[in-house]
């Protein structure tokens, strides 16, 4: 019978028990312990994917120059970045400074999440607006207000196997869609089973979007109130894109299943790969030295000759809730220095957005970069509406169904418009009631 314990050990047992209760009662305060009280100058910096890994090597230089500032870097996977940013906004946990895909600026600006940067730029000796490529700088201004400083520029174009193309009878990469189709058909004809002329992951929207931006028609109409995907221009792009799959020139694979695109291109599984500049670094790192002469880059072919591409890339932004905005700006300035940008390029292959950064180092001489430089002259921005990311995600879902043969091109275009119009419903209501997307 343990109900008759010696009185002496009761208190200690009870105390232990009360401790548990106390813990249960005070755990609400736990958040206080888990958030380290912000140091005087600890900057939280969110960067994505390869950029996040590369910028980690630039930060010591910044911290050395600014001993009073400590930078905590967080690396987000690209696929999750957009969602993480919105969640951080919804949960009031935005960082001080972040890398932001420039198509997302409109969205976060509409949410009032970003700090306008014009006042800083006006007094800056580092960030000189005139030095930046005009088209890229423009994507950072929403309704006349500057929200981001371009960090690097990016456009999608062709990586290709020179030797495979030569073996198929072509000495130069395609310049127009017609040439491109001929080359893919020729590659297909001499194909081994399981090999394809081109890799276009069906869950990436950038490829179709690049083709669509080569058309004259805008993607949204009436001031971003409705989708414009049933325009003849978009349908032409969609038909070309879908045709590649229908002719089995590209596999119906999403990028979750392509384990290692660089090695696969190296093995000749794909002769073309439509992707971005960071792959220059990946190809150099992942392919053996003997194969380095086999691949190159080419501007994206257009409907009738060299075509446009997306003006994408990332900007650096400061969040409105940040309590270290002045320090965040110092980090932006540091990362905007031409010398730092060149180093960044060497680390990850991302191209600098300002002209002075291009005047030196390997950027001037690297042949694989020239295709990008050429195409950067022809980049076009995407519509600056907050809903764009959702619209373009929906576009790709429908396009993938068309690629699988579930929808015709006309049906797909109509479906994309239907989805876009539904997504834009709230925007229309806000515009009609003069609320504007700016709250």
């Amino acid at each position: 019978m343990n109900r008759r314990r010696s009185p002496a050990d009761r208190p200690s047992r009870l105390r232990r028990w009360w401790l548990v209760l106390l813990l249960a009662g005070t755990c609400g305060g736990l958040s206080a312990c888990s958030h380290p009280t912000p140091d005087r100058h600890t900057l939280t910096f969110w960067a994505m994917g390869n950029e996040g890994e590369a910028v980690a090597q630039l930060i010591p230089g910044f911290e050395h120059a600014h001993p009073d500032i400590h930078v905590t870097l967080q690396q987000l996977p690209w696929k999750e970045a957009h969602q993480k940013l919105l969640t951080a906004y919804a949960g009031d946990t935005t960082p001080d400074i972040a890398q932001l895909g420039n198509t997302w600026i409109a969205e976060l600006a509409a949410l009032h999440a970003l700090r306008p940067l014009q006042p800083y730029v006006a007094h800056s000796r580092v960030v000189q607006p005139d030095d930046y490529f005009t088209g890229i700088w423009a994507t950072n201004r929403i309704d006349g207000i500057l929200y981001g400083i371009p960090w690097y520029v990016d456009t999608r174009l062709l990586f290709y196997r020179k030797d495979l193309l030569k073996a198929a009878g072509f000495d130069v990469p395609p310049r127009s869609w017609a040439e491109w189709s001929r080359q893919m058909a020729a590659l297909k004809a001499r194909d081994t089973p399981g090999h394809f002329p081109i890799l276009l992951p069906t869950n990436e929207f950038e490829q179709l979007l690049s083709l669509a931006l080569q058309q004259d028609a805008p993607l949204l109409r009436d001031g971003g109130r409705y989708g414009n995907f049933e325009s003849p221009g978009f349908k032409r792009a969609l038909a070309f894109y879908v045709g590649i799959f229908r002719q089995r020139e590209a596999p119906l694979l999403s990028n979750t299943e392509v384990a290692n695109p660089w090695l696969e291109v190296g093995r000749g599984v794909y002769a073309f790969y439509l992707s971005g500049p960071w792959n220059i670094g990946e190809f150099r790192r992942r392919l053996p030295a003997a194969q380095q002469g086999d691949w190159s880059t080419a501007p994206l072919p257009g409907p009738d000759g060299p075509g446009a591409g997306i003006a994408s890339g990332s900007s650096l932004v400061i969040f409105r809730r940040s309590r270290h905005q002045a320090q965040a700006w110092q980090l932006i300035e540091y990362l905007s220095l031409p010398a730092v940008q060149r180093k960044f390029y060497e680390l990850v292959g991302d191209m600098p957005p300002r002209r002075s950064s291009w005047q030196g180092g390997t950027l001037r001489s690297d042949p694989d970069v020239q295709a990008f430089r050429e195409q950067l002259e022809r980049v076009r921005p995407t519509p600056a509406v907050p809903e764009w990311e959702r619209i373009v995600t929906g576009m790709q879902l429908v396009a993938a169904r068309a690629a699988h043969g579930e929808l015709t091109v006309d049906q797909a275009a109509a479906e994309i418009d239907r989805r876009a119009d539904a997504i834009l419903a709230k925007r229309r209501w806000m515009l009609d009631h003069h609320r504007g997307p700016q709250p």
Partner: protein
Amino acid sequence: MNRQRAAWLFLAPALLVLGVFFILPVIAALGLSLTDYDLYALADIHNLRFVGLHNYWALLHRPLFWSALGNTFYFVAVGVPLSIAASLVAALLLNSPLARIRPFFRTVLFAPVVTTVVAVAVIWRYLFNTRYGLVNYGLAEIGIHPIDWLGDPHWAMPTIIAFAVWKNFGYNMIIIMAGLQAIPPDLYEAARIDGASAPRQFWHITLPLLRPTMMLVVILTVAGYFQLFAEPYVMTEGGPLQSTVSVLYLMYQDGFKWWNLGTASAVAFMLFLIIFAVTTLLLRLARRGEHPAGKRT
């Protein structure tokens, strides 16, 4: 009375937590589902509109909701019977007096249950890789062409079902084993004396006496399988062609990817209603078929 007060004191922490962090949010979700709460409203609450049942109405007209519902029902309708069949077979084998090293087998068969879904889903993603996966390699050895398991909209869900069966069958196996052990051995003894064969014994003794256990297992599994989420999140991200988007995945996407909290709450409530309806129906069926003396819940 002191004891009454003590009781409430003992209940207080748990009831407080459940009340504030579960019951209250559930009620709030119902309210939320009647609004168009979205990012704009999150930025400025004046952009919030009360929309009545519009979210539910719009859901019923949204093809993706129906396909998510279809995918979820597919997962439940195929996955539950397969899971339970696997559990039953494993339990019968383990329960056989002829089985050796039973504790070892029991532990091994149960091991997948305690593993982390995300981690093992990652393993399966590689095992079922079209090009380098072991599964296709093994099939090629016996002359079957490679199957694009997670990339073909027709195969992605079956692959996820196979994964779920592998991951979960151990759980029900343990419950069914307990049910088997509760069957009095003299029933089998008597049947053997009557000359009944093993299949007949199974059919006329084991199955009827196992019925309450099986019903329980079915209902628990059905309710659990309706909440499909982590598997498609890790293995396919809802693809290909959204063929593995489940209702819960849709809720997550609407709510936490695009921040349409109103629509997402409506999806969550629809899911709740469906689970409730299906399990109630199953309970009814179970009771109707039960012996009058059968145990009621």
